[in-house]
């Protein structure tokens, strides 16, 4: 087609790709003869069914599109017209108020149309005749009539769904229940009379439901071609079968089976338990009876012993409780430091933790005070010496001291396994500058030892290396050590320090820290095995041990100022 037209031009028509950018021209940008010569007749897919494609009016409209009058383009169709003489307002009385926002609505037709039975002209005639005989106050309203009819229809549909086939008609007695439940008291007297009307109507309709309804699928074979049967069910769509889905469902089935089996076993066990209970009861009874006999015999024979053989003793039970008590103390002791929330294990422990908290509080206040004092003391201090050693920024009075316990305590490998050589000759990688090498030792407030063992390394005059230790206190002080572990995260000046919210006793954090590899500066920080050794050993053990060992005479060694 197009290629034929182009053939004259002796250029081969390239295939037109969808993403080819094409030039856009107006017809008047070509000369007219040229444009019409380019016209080709090709078959264009219209999407209309083939048989209708050549329908007269459609063809006329498609052709008429090329310059015909408006009429030619229109396809004649039976038009709608306004219903003559219609009282629209009577039929549609409700006035609508447009909401300000977009409507959101999910009620169904059934929910918005009230009673589903709508009386017919026939019903109307009946009801009028029926009411005619009655006095004004006892007439049946149309609403009541419809409600009663609806109940009859619903009950019939419910109880004898195949009424049209087998001709079953529910008797009025059969309807009474539903009437009682669904119709208000006042309308009950009408039910019987309306029932007669209903029965006749049903009969006339071949015992079909009275309201015209759509034909639904009944017999798949027969209904298939029936154009009145509509809205058939669609078969559930098949999910694609894949190996993953297969195994998935196998897993599901397995689990289901297991769960069902567990349920079964549970019931089985409960059954066994009940059987055992019955046995026990029987035994108890026979024991009782035997004892009764024993008693009788004793009385008869005049044997006077204590009556122990006549009562049940349960020594095994007492043992059980003993066992429990024995088991608890070590456990609670272990847990003691971890109970930061003060949840009591026993009465004793409540008091202990309270005490500790109290102590800790006073301690904290004291520290706070001293820190404050120290800062005041340092205020406005200008060091005019050359290259002054100024305080390491952001460090409090504890500057330079690193806590020993926290890092040592949970190491994967106990420090004792580290050879002394490694302390004496640190590997080159450990030679990097110490982050806290030069500290500013606050002059006055080198106060009482802290609960936590800590040390620092500093370089003194003449390049001497010093290791300062502190916190190697008595047993009582060490008990606080765990508490004071908290200060590790405390900074006195809180201007720009990020606040890390954490529970210091949360084992999660401890466990995580335990996985952190041995930091290299720790090696370099304790080059003197004779000092670091015992300290490490102490730190490597549990708090309980810690206490024991320090109590055995480790005295804090104050560093020279």
């Amino acid at each position, binding site marked *: 087609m*197009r290629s034929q037209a182009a053939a004259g031009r002796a250029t081969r028509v390239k295939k037109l790709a*969808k993403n*080819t950018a094409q030039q856009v021209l*107006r017809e008047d940008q070509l000369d007219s003869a040229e444009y019409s010569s*380019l016209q080709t007749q090709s078959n264009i897919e219209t999407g209309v069914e083939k*048989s209708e494609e050549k*329908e007269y009016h459609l063809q006329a409209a498609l052709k008429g599109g090329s310059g015909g009058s408006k009429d030619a383009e229109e396809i004649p169709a039976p038009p709608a017209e306004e219903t003559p003489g219609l009282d629209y307002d009577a039929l549609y009385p409700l006035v*609508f108020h447009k909401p300000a926002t977009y409507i959101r609505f999910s009620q169904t037709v059934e929910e918005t149309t009230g009673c589903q039975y709508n009386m017919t002209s026939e019903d109307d005639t009946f009801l009028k005749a029926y009411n005619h005989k009655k006095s004004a106050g006892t007439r049946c309203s149309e609403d009541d009539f419809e409600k009663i009819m609806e109940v009859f229809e619903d009950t019939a549909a419910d109880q004898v769904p195949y009424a049209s086939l087998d001709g079953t008609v529910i008797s009025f007695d059969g309807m009474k229940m539903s009437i009682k439940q669904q119709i208000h008291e006042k309308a009950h007297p009408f039910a019987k009379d309306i029932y007669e009307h209903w029965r006749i109507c049903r009969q006339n309709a071949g015992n079909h439901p009275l309201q015209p309804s759509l034909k639904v699928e009944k017999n798949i074979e*027969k209904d*298939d071609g029936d154009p009145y049967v509509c809205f058939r069910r669609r078969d559930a769509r098949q999910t694609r079968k894949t190996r993953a889905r297969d195994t998935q469902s196998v897993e599901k089935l397995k689990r289901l089976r297991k769960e069902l089996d567990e349920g079964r076993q549970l019931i089985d066990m409960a059954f066994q338990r009940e059987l055992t209970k019955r046995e026990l009861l029987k035994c108890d009874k026979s024991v009782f009876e035997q004892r009764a006999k024993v008693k009788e015999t004793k009385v008869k024979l005049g044997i006077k012993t204590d009556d122990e053989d006549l009562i049940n003793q349960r020594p095994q039970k007492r043992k059980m409780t003993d066992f429990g008590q024995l088991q608890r103390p070590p456990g609670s002791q272990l847990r003691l430091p971890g109970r930061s929330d003060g949840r009591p294990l026993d009465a004793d422990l409540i008091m202990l933790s309270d005490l500790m908290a109290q102590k800790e509080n006073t301690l904290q206040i004291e520290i706070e005070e001293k820190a404050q004092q120290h800062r005041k003391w340092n205020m406005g201090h200008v060091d005019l010496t050359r290259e002054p050693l100024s305080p390491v920024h952001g460090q409090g009075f504890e500057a330079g001291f690193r806590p020993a316990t926290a890092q040592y305590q949970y190491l994967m490998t106990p420090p004792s396994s580290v050879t002394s050589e490694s302390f004496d000759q640190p590997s080159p990688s450990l030679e990097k500058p110490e982050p806290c090498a030069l500290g500013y030792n606050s002059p006055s407030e080198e106060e009482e030892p802290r609960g936590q063992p800590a040390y620092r390394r500093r370089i003194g005059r003449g390049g001497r290396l010093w290791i300062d230790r502190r916190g190697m206190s008595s047993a009582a002080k060490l008990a606080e050590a765990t508490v004071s572990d908290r200060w590790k995260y405390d900074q006195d000046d809180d201007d720009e320090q990020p606040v890390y919210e954490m529970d210091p006793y949360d084992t999660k954090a401890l466990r995580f820290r335990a996985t952190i590899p041995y930091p290299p500066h720790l090696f370099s920080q304790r080059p003197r095995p004779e000092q670091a050794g015992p300290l490490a050993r102490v730190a490597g053990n549990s708090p309980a041990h810690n206490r024991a060992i320090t109590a055995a005479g480790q005295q804090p060694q104050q560093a020279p100022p």
Partner: protein
Amino acid sequence: MAGGGDNKDSKGESQVPKINGRATADTLKIGCIAMVQKDGQHRRAEILSIRDIKSGRQFYCNFDNFNKRLDEWVPVNRIDFSQDVEWPSPEKPKEAKKSSAPVAKKTIGQKKGQKRPAVTREVSVASEASTPRPWGDFDDSQKGTPDPEGEEKLTTPLDLDNTPGAEDDDPMDLDEVAARAVSAKAEPPEAFSRQEEIEKLRVGGSMTQNQAEISRIRNITKVQFGKYDLFPWYFSPYPEAFTQEDLMYICEFCLCYWGDVKSFQRHRQKCTLQHPPGNELYRDDYVSFFEIDGRRQRTWCRNLCLLSKMFLDHKTLYYDVDPFLFYVMTSRDEKGYHLVGYFSKEKESVDGYNVACILTLPQYQRRGYGRLLIQFSYELSKIENKLGSPEKPLSDLGLLSYRQYWTERLIEILLECNEKDEKISIEMLAQRLAMTTADVESTLQAKHMQVWHKTDHKIVIPMKLIKEHEARVEKAKTKPKREIDPDLIQWKPPVFTASTRTWGW
């Protein structure tokens, strides 16, 4: 209308010789093809049904190359008996059974199933020689109007054409009628079978269906809907009892249907709906759009489908409405939101359709509403980031509406490109309009815009389309054109979980 529509283009395709001969009003049978007057001309018409009413015998005629919506009941005097009539195939099995025309069957049409002639119905008419008949075995489901007794009624003329309307019942046993409507021509069996077709429907979720499946005879005469009387175009499977009514009533808001006027009035007193039962997605000062889930609002959507089936030939109601969403356009007044038109859309379309069925109700047709519906469907596709296309087959009116919309939109962009001297590809056009590239291509070709000029493919905008465009622009100055404003759409593409996508109940 212009060119005489006689048998100019319908003759001569048939392979089997036809039996021609003279007929009278009494001998004319179903399946015959006769010359019948239509719009002042004689046209070939197939007799689909026969009935006797007070004023005489009437024949239901389908006119050659006219859409089915123009089928009508024709009195004897419009049939030209001076010309030969083509008789239906003689090897028709049940031929002998029924020679006298109107045998009234009293039973009201439930015996359809019993009598299913095993005859394969083939095309009987030359005009239909090219009609694809997908159904391997055509069932004789034609009986449009089962009827008690040939009782007589006053015939009200359809306004469109002054023929007696179809209000009167057909006294014939239509089972037999259909059975006899067997063809004169043995066409080779079609490649696809009925089973395949239904299978396609089942898995494909299509809403359209071959027309041969449903009755070819209009079964509802007149419908009172809102303020209007509607005259249906096609068959719709409302309860069979309604086919005997002169007038059927449909509630404008819940779309429920009644044959009895008292019932309808009673319903109207109880019905509280005043807008489609779903969420409003769009509102401007002219129209509103609602989204209705076929699964949630089964009754309403079924009612909508029944209503629209009266005006859509290729719509099928074979399966239920669950897998569809319905986008309903309404106009607003003090009584509520009145249904103007709608389109349905598959929740998940395998073929990338963004519209399944689309309809503007007859009382609102030719007022630009169809364009708004189409535009809205593409706006939704834009939000979804998809290219959409309406499901095929299109109806004649559908094709015209879509062509018009596509052309207008393409011309706008193309003129812009021309002005800026920019190049544009089919893909870019498709992306900008959320149309499929196939639709862009077919529109360009249909409007003779795609040309091979010199050494390149080029798009040439014909002067006629430019003039039309300018006329529209001019008109818009005085009377602004109604457009969908995408900014007013409050919509997120609905997401369906695996369980809600299982369309079975």
